[in-house]
C-alpha cells in the first residue's frame, strides 16, 4: 500500500491529526449545544487506534466502539461524510440516522461503531467466520474497551473465535476507566491480556501511546492471525484526556493523573520519533498538521452545507 516507511508514517500522522482535530471540533460543537445527543471522544488514544488500523490491509475489517472516531479514521474514512453524520445530515455515512455512535462504512470493511458496550464482539466474530469460510485472506480487528471486557459477550466471542480458529484480533483499548469506574474496581487483574489464557490464545500488551510501536507490533501479530494461527487478544494501554462523554465532571480521577498522561501525548511522541529517526522534518510534520486542520474545517463546511434528511426518509431502510 505504501511505497516507503515515510509515506506510511506521513499517512499515519495525517490520520492521527485528523482524529485529534475532528474531535476537538466535535467537542467545541457539543460544548455549545450545536450538536444533538452525546459523544465519546478518544483524544489521547489516537496512536492506539490509528497505529493498529494502519497495520491492516485496506480491505480488512474492523468493528468499532462508542469511542470510535480515532478507530474509523485510522481505518481510513471520508471525513466529510463523517462530520456530516455527526451533524445529522443526509450526506452523512448513515444518512443522519446513526450519529457518532454508529459511524459505519460496511463496503470498505468498517462494520460500524456500536452504542452497546461489547456489542461488537459477536459481530466481529461472525465477520471473521465469513473470512474463514470464504477463504478471503482478510482479518478482523475488533475494538473494545477495558470495561467491555467484563461483559459476557467478550467471553463468549473469544471462546468461540478460539474454538473455530478464526482470523480475528480482539483489541482492547485499556484507558483505565469504564465511564467513572477505574479498572481496579471493575476487575481484579492488572493486565487484561491475561484473559487470553481462558481461551488458549495468545495475549499481548502494547504501549498504546506509541504509534510506531503499535504499528510494528500489530503488523507482526496480524501476520500471524492472517496466516491461520487463530485469534489473539491485544491490550493496548492508553488514556483518554477528556471526560467519558458530553457531561462528565470527572470526579473519579485527578488532574495530576490526566496531566501525567498528557506528557506522553501520542502525537508528541510520534512527532519526536519522526524527527529523531530522521524520517520527517518538523516542517513536514507541521505541514500535515495544517493540512488536516484545514480538512476538518472543510468537512465542517461540507456538513453545514448539506441537507437534513427529508422527514419521509424516517421510514426508509428498516427492511431491505
Amino acid at each position, binding site marked *: 500500500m505504501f511505497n516507503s516507511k515515510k509515506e506510511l508514517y506521513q499517512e499515519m500522522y495525517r490520520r492521527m491529526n485528523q482524529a485529534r482535530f475532528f474531535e476537538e471540533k466535535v467537542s467545541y460543537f457539543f460544548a455549545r449545544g450545536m450538536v444533538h445527543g452525546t459523544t465519546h471522544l478518544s483524544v489521547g488514544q489516537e496512536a492506539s487506534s490509528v497505529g493498529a488500523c494502519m497495520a491492516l490491509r485496506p480491505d480488512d475489517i474492523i468493528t468499532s466502539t462508542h469511542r470510535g472516531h480515532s478507530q474509523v479514521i485510522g481505518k481510513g474514512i471520508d471525513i466529510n461524510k463523517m462530520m456530516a453524520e455527526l451533524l445529522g445530515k443526509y450526506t452523512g*455515512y448513515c444518512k443522519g440516522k446513526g450519529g457518532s455512535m454508529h459511524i459505519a462504512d460496511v463496503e470498505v470493511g468498517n462494520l*460500524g461503531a456500536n452504542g452497546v458496550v461489547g456489542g461488537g464482539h459477536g459481530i466481529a466474530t461472525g465477520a471473521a467466520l465469513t473470512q474463514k469460510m470464504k477463504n478471503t485472506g482478510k482479518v478482523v480487528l475488533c475494538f473494545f474497551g477495558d470495561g467491555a471486557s467484563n461483559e459476557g459477550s467478550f467471553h463468549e466471542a473469544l471462546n468461540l473465535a478460539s474454538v473455530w480458529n478464526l482470523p480475528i484480533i480482539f483489541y482492547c483499548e485499556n484507558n483505565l476507566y469504564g465511564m467513572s469506574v477505574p479498572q481496579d474496581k471493575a476487575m481484579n487483574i492488572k493486565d487484561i491480556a491475561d484473559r487470553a489464557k481462558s481461551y488458549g490464545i495468545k495475549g499481548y500488551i502494547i504501549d498504546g501511546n506509541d504509534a510506531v510501536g503499535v504499528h510494528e507490533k500489530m503488523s507482526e501479530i496480524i501476520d500471524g492471525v492472517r496466516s491461520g494461527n487463530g485469534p489473539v487478544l491485544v491490550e493496548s494501554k492508553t488514556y483518554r484526556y477528556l471526560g467519558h462523554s458530553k457531561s462528565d465532571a470527572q470526579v473519579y480521577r485527578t488532574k495530576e493523573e490526566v496531566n501525567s498522561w498528557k506528557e506522553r501525548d501520542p502525537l508528541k511522541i510520534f512527532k519526536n520519533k519522526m524527527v529523531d529517526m530522521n524520517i520527517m522534518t518538523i516542517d513536514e510534520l507541521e505541514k500535515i498538521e495544517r493540512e488536516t486542520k484545514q480538512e476538518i474545517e472543510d468537512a465542517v463546511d461540507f456538513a453545514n452545507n448539506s441537507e437534513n434528511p427529508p422527514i419521509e426518509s424516517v421510514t426508509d431502510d428498516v427492511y431491505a
Partner: protein
Amino acid sequence: MEMTYKDAIKMAMVEEMRRDEDVFLMGEDVGLYGGAFGVSVGMFEEFGEDRVRDTPISEAVIAGAACGAAVTGMRPIAEIMFMDFTTIAMDSIVNQAAKMRYMFGGKAKVPMVLRTPGGSGTGAAAQHSQSLEAWFCHVPGLKVVVPATPKDAKGLLKAAIRDDNPVMFIEQKTLYKTKGEVPEEDDFIIPLGKGEIKREGKDITVVSYGRMLPRVLEAAKKAAEKGIDVEVVDPRTLVPLDKEMIVESVKKTGKLLLVNEAVKTGGYIGEIAAMVAESEAFDYLDSPIVRLAGLDVPVPYNPELEAAIVPSEEKILDTLIKMVRKER
C-alpha cells in the same frame, strides 16, 4: 409428499444449502447430534462440519456471530435450542441485527434466520416452554414467522433464508412430529407476509397460528356439525402481518376470536385485536373481540396443570358457540 413438520424444516435447509453455498447452519448440538429435537439429523453427514457448526453453549455469540457473518456476505441459519434462551441473545438480535441496516442508513443487509422452538406441552416447565413471539414482533427490523403445518414450514423457511433481513423463525415443539403434504419442488416458496385462510366460513373469524391452529381447525369442524360456519385465518407470518386478509374476513363475518398459546397479557393476538379495533372492520363487529390465550402464569411442570394453561379444543369450541349464539 407426506412428511413431518420437522423433516419439512430440514428439507428447506438442505435444499437451500445445496442451492447456495453461503447458507450454513450453526447452533448447539446441531451437528453430529442432529439438534435437540432432531431437526438437523443427517445434515452434518451431508455438509460437513464447516457448514453444520456445533457451537459452545453461548447464545449471545451464536446470534451475534450470525449477524456478523450475515452482514459480511454469508446467509447463516442460527439455531437457539429453546426459545427461552433467546433471552441470552437479545442484544445481538434486537440491538444489533434488527437495527444495523437502519442505523447505517441502509448501507448494510443482514440476511440471517434465527430458528428456535417455542411452546409448552413437553413437560419441560417454566424455563423451556415459553412463547415469546410478541417480543420480536415489537422490534422493527425483524420479521417473525410461526408456521403451523409442514407445508408452511418448508415454504416459509425457504423464503426466510432467501430474505435479506433477520427473520425469527419460530418452530413449534409439539408440532415437530405432525405430518402433512409438502411440495417437493425446489422452488416452492411461501412469501413472508401472506396469510392463508385455512378454512372458509361466514359466521365468525378465528385468527390463530402455530400450535393452536390444529385445535382451532378441529373445533371449527365440530362447530360445523352444530351449524356454525367458522372461517380460520392463519397469518403464518406475524411481521409483516397480512392485515388485509384479517380485516376482510372480519368484515365478512362480523365476529372475531383470536387464539394463541402465549400468555394473554401482552401477547401478539392483542396486537391483532387492536389492529382490527382501529380498522374499518370495527364497524362490522357485532360483538366484542375475544381472545383465548395462555393463562398469565409461568409454565408449570405437572402435566395436567401444563395442559390447563393453554386453550383447549373444548374451550375454543365453546367460545365459538357462545360468540355466534351471542351468549356472553
